[in-house]
């Protein structure tokens, strides 16, 4: 777990959301963490995938949303949705690292009095158009 977290810290350095990925907001024992790096992501023109999912109360969800919002400041493009005061969706294209594009994907879904939050961090050469067309095509093929 320490190795996983250290890798995460390196990948998302400079991001406010790094605190979430590192388990500073929600303890690692209370979330599902997925990390894929290398050949497995080549299909999507990505090199790195990091996903965390957890369940929190509204106060914590607002804290996470605030961190995501902080990372939109220097983003190249941002799509967000709000539910009341809480940001419930964000697709953020972060400032690239050289030729490597970076994305932050966030979603919070209500489940009774709590929120189920998903946060992804992606790196690779795929453009937003690539990703949209890639998965739109898959969806079309599935129908």
């Amino acid at each position: 777990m320490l190795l996983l977290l250290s890798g995460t810290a390196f990948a998302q350095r400079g991001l406010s959301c790094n605190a979430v990925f590192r388990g500073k907001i929600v303890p690692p024992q209370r979330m599902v963490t997925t990390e894929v790096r290398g050949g497995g992501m080549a299909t999507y023109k990505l090199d790195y995938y990091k996903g965390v999912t957890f369940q929190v109360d509204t106060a914590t969800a607002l804290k996470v949303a605030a961190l995501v919002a902080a990372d939109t400041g220097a983003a190249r493009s941002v799509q967000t949705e709000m539910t009341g005061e809480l940001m419930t969706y964000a697709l953020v294209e972060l400032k690239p690292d050289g030729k490597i594009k970076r994305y932050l994907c966030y979603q919070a879904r209500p489940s009774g009095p709590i929120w189920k939050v998903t946060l992804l961090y992606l790196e690779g050469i795929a453009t937003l158009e690539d990703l949209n067309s890639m998965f739109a095509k898959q969806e079309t093929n599935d129908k």
Partner: protein
Amino acid sequence: MTDKEKYTRLMQRYWEAETTPAEERELARYAARTDDPAFDQLRGVLGYLSVGRTTRVRKGRRVRIYPIAAAAAGIAAVIALALTLRFAPARQADDLCVRYAYGVKYSDSDAIMTSVESSLADFFAGETPAEVQLFEMFQR
């Protein structure tokens, strides 16, 4: 009639060149397993013939090595290996595919990649992230 009598007669016919190939093989087998001195001369002859046949067979199966062809094959093998290493998809040393669900490690790459694809598809197609479904699945 004992074996000795039978094979002694057969040996006499052998010396007179009246035996069939099958009888000669049978006689040779007997001569090989008996230590009767009466068959020493026969063993000597049969042994010689046996060695002679073996030599002929070995000569027939001898593999001739052509130095130039061997060298060419070796060079071709080295080039093929080099090309394979050069153009094969490089698997990086830091490749990683892992999931921690509430502190428990999972490393089923197929399952992880399936959920990764679903998550990406869901996000970029505007659907519910599969990570949420995964969370619900692992939720205790």
